[in-house]
């Protein structure tokens, strides 16, 4: 694989990059600014039925009886579907086979789907929901991992309450603690963070005359949906066509089971009625039904020498995965691999548990365990610094990963490690020493503080699954290059980036390329669009396929120009003979000629990343093929009378390997940073006895335009070995650090160490009160 990379880059070596590294406009912007009807619910067929879902009222109950007879008879109701209508397997899952599509004998979270009602009129379907009579027998429930792990706790699943347990064992922590001069303990708690994609989940299913179905929806992973629906309907995956409509934000949940839920229910109705069926979740359903960020309770015990060198790191992470595991086992995997933060620690012992509770589900959400792991690690580093009387920046620089050192999983850090440069640049830009000194002198009711947090982020799936991506490219007669992939666009701009990479490989301007919607009929399985892997893995596939097409064009050009293959080169859309540039032919003419000669200008390929091997008992091994590194500072102002925290300025520094599109990259960084800010100070999905108290945007607070800080974005490029041109993943990293950076800044401002996020005004003020005087 890495040889292919070298070969491709040889082709473009020595050349000025044509489009990669340029701020090319995204291919989908124009339709969006014009308000064209491109999202799922904009293109629902005229005669479609609309579904409304009957959901569990209880967090944990046996279903004694589900009576839909009255709903069936309600005028205007086309059909009602329950688990009994499922021809195949009643399962809608992301990883473990633990979750049904529609509940049969038991419900495990408040809001779990039990039945669906279809009507041409949404209001009628709505009214009929009330007519469904469900006899529940509530049974004891648990709402926290600690409770769920107790011996007498109600067991939620046949395997018990622990969906997965992962371990890191590096060296010998007891030895490490003996070597330490000081041992520092701490405990940290994070919350359910709700992704809030502004377009709630939506999908419609069209039953085709030949017995197959077509699914169109707002999704991240068309192939996951395809296999899931095929199982439910007991048909072959080839009979399920899945097309991604333009998707209004995703951030993770739209790649888990929820779209299988949506399409599953719609497909049951479509098959039964032979009519198109559409299901659009309301905001509340979306917030209750899809996956959110796992709350983590992390206890840490770290051994450190007087001079600041870390000797041992022991941690236990309890992740609340809710009623069904979703991708929880993989979330704790990523979290545990990053247990210590980006530091050299010779002895590490970490245990992570993915625990079932009767809360709503947790699963994929941008960051995927990284934010939780770094919140604990980076908060704790500041605590250690304070105990040692050391500057937190200095403590970090002393211990950071550098090329040649080992991570917590004993992976050797390669030379593509820009962590140190990121840390130094961020600190400098933030005015680290000067400002923190300044802030110490402040008095008055408003106090300022400056905090830092640093990270590393293993790119792509690592050992989470097979890491591959497929790309198809086909040149039409008019020279348009149709680009198809199963990787989905939902705001990241990554697929536009793929176009840039393909264009670069073929050394053509991007306007020739046309990005087709992901469609399982026309692309080979590309895996899910998650883990920030579109550019890293998809980009390699784009290079591969683009490279093959480029060869093809060169062959035809060589024939036309009457020269040998090696003699031909190209610049922009002109192909010429190296020794005599006057002998040239245009790209368009090559295409025309190829068509005349019957030469196929169609290529496809799948790039598969090397497998990551690690020991499942100790997590030691090569866990990721490439890492993104970063450092973020936050300058905050705390109003000590009200507890409100304003984030004034943030400096972000990331080692991104290679920026494919700097402007888009900045957009990803800014967007992720603001989401991280929300995670730090205002976002919290609150459950009470398993019932979500704030499933709406009035009471679940995401940052508005008046809440954003000034963001100074710095990037450095230490090209990695995995991504095209050395590009590294940048979709997820920006959400990881704002929380610890802000919490550390609050500590600098008011001398309060908050160990639980979000740092709401209530928490801040009460903490200040309990402590007494405001201290610097």
């Amino acid at each position: 694989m890495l040889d292919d990379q070298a070969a491709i880059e040889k082709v473009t070596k020595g050349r000025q990059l044509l489009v990669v590294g340029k701020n090319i406009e995204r291919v989908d912007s124009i339709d969006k600014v014009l308000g064209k009807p491109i999202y799922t619910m904009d293109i629902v067929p005229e005669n479609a039925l609309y579904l409304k879902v009957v959901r569990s009222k209880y967090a944990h109950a046996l279903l004694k009886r589900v009576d839909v007879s009255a709903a069936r008879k309600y005028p205007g109701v086309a059909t009602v579907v329950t688990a009994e209508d499922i021809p195949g397997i009643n399962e809608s899952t992301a990883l473990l086979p633990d979750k049904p599509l529609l509940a049969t004998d038991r419900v495990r979270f408040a809001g779990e789907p039990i039945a669906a009602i279809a009507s041409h009129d949404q209001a009628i379907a709505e009214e009929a929901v009330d007519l469904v009579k469900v006899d529940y027998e509530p049974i004891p429930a648990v709402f926290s991992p600690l409770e769920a792990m107790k011996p007498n706790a109600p067991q939620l699943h046949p395997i018990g309450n622990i969906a997965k347990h992962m371990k890191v064992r590096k060296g010998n922590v007891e030895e490490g603690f003996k070597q330490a001069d000081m041992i520092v303990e701490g405990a940290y708690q994070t919350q359910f963070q709700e992704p809030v994609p502004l377009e709630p989940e939506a999908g419609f299913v069209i039953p085709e005359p030949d017995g197959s179905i077509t699914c169109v929806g707002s999704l991240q992973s068309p192939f996951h949906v395809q296999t899931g629906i095929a199982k439910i309907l007991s048909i072959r995956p080839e009979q399920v066509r899945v097309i991604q409509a333009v998707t209004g934000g995703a951030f993770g949940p739209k790649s888990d089971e929820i779209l299988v839920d949506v399409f599953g229910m719609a497909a049951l109705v479509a098959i039964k009625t032979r009519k198109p069926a559409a299901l659009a979740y309301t905001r509340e359903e979306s917030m209750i039904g899809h996956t959110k960020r796992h709350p983590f309770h992390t206890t840490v015990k770290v051994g450190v020498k007087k001079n600041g060198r870390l000797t041992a790191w022991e941690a236990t992470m309890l992740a609340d995965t809710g009623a069904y595991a979703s991708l929880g086992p993989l979330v704790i995997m990523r979290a545990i691999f990053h247990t210590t933060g980006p530091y050299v620690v010779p002895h590490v012992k970490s245990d992570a548990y993915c625990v079932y509770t009767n809360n709503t589900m947790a699963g994929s959400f941008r960051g995927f365990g990284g934010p939780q792991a770094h919140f604990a690690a980076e908060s704790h580093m500041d605590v250690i610094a304070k105990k040692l009387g050391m500057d937190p920046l200095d403590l970090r620089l002393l211990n950071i990963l550098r090329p040649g050192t080992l991570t917590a999983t004993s992976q050797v850090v390669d030379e593509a490690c820009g962590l140190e440069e990121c840390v130094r640049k961020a600190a400098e830009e933030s005015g680290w020493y000067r400002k923190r000194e300044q802030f110490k002198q402040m008095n008055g009711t408003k106090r300022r503080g400056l905090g830092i947090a640093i990270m590393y982020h293993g790119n792509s799936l690592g050992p989470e699954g097979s890491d591959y991506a497929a790309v198809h490219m086909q040149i039409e007669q008019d020279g348009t290059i149709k680009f198809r992939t199963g990787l989905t666009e939902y705001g990241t701009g990554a697929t536009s980036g793929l176009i840039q990479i393909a264009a670069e490989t073929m050394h053509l301007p991007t306007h020739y390329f046309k990005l087709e919607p992901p469609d399982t009929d026309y692309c080979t399985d590309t895996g899910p669009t998650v883990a920030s892997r579109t550019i890293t893995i998809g980009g390699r596939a784009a290079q591969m396929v683009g490279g093959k097409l480029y060869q093809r064009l060169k062959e035809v050009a060589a024939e036309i120009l009457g020269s040998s293959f090696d003699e031909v080169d190209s610049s922009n859309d002109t192909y010429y003979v190296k020794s005599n540039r006057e002998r040239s032919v245009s790209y368009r003419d090559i295409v025309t000629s190829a068509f005349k000669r019957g030469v196929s200008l169609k290529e496809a390929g799948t790039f598969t990343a090397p497998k990551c091997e690690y020991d499942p008992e100790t997590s030691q091994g090569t866990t990721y093929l490439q890492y993104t590194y970063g450092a973020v500072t936050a300058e905050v102002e705390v109003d000590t009378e009200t507890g409100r925290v304003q984030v004034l300025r943030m400096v972000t520094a990331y080692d991104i390997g290679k920026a494919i599109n700097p402007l888009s990259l900045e957009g990803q960084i800014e967007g992720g940073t603001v989401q991280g800010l929300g995670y730090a100070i205002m976002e919290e999905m609150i459950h009470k006895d398993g019932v979500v108290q704030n499933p709406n945007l009035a009471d679940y607070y995401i940052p508005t335009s008046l809440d954003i800080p000034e963001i100074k974005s710095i990037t450095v490029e230490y090209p990695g070995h995995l991504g095209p041109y050395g590009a590294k993943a940048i979709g997820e990293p920006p959400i990881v650090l704002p929380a610890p950076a802000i919490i550390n800044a609050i500590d600098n401002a008011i001398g309060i160490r908050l160990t639980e996020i979000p740092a709401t005004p209530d928490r801040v003020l009460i903490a200040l009160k309990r402590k007494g005087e405001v201290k610097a």
Partner: protein
Amino acid sequence: MMETLYYWFHQRQVGRQLRRFDMYIPENLADLLDYLDAHQSGVHLIANGSDLINRIQRRQINPKILVDLSGLSEFSYVRKDGKTIKIGAMTTISDIIASSVIDTRHDVFREVAAQFGGPSIINMATIGGNVCAASSSEDLLPVLLVLDAQVRLRSKRGDRILRLDDFLKGKRIIHLNPNEILVEVMFPELDDYSVCAFEKIGMRNSLIIAFVNSAVYLKLDKRTRRIETIRIAFNRVAGKIPERAKRTEEKLHGQVVNEHVMKEGLSSLNAELRLSSDFRVSSEYRTDVAGVLFKRALNRCAEKLLGEAVIV
């Protein structure tokens, strides 16, 4: 033995579309009043819908008939009648703050609007809608309470005028007869000796549902600095609706505006306020911050009148 957990299903149910109902659109006021006289139950009035639609979605009400008031443009006005300012019930917040009658003396309305939640919200929210919603989320209510506002209610049989605090009975409960509509809100204008300030706090800087908000009205003898009248209101005091903290008002009456009186006010509020916890914030936080907001509002009042704050 484990106890069975009884589940209290939160009223905010999942996935609500609007249900079907009939709409009555009156051509003019006379028709409307006739209609209300004739239909005395199952009818809900709607100004611009903001609050009502949410309540239908949450199944808090299930109207059979909605009466649309948005066409009654004669109730959109801001007038001065002698020393009284009269605002028509259908006047939007943005129209109120654009009116020349609401001059800099009455900037408190702008203070409310600035923290309301963006242009689209203030373009639709009406003063009548706010008042009739009668809940602690309505920011105008504490301001109107300290301005000693009155409401004019009209039915086929004529008008009656109620003090605002008498009109508000409880959360979403108002003293409005089924055949009446609210047509006007009135309050004495502010002058050289009286000012009003508003403070609010929530989780973020826009689209804020207040944890606590506070309005203070201050009338001073500028020479002696004695408080002639002070009115203090919060979005909650002892119940679930905006109210005035009357005990504290009484304590501060007649005193000289200074640091000492501020402290007295704070400690009195601490005793008088019975703010509850909810899933958003704790009662301890609410009470503490209510005090801070009172202090800030009072300071601003003092600054507006005397040119200096009372306490830093």
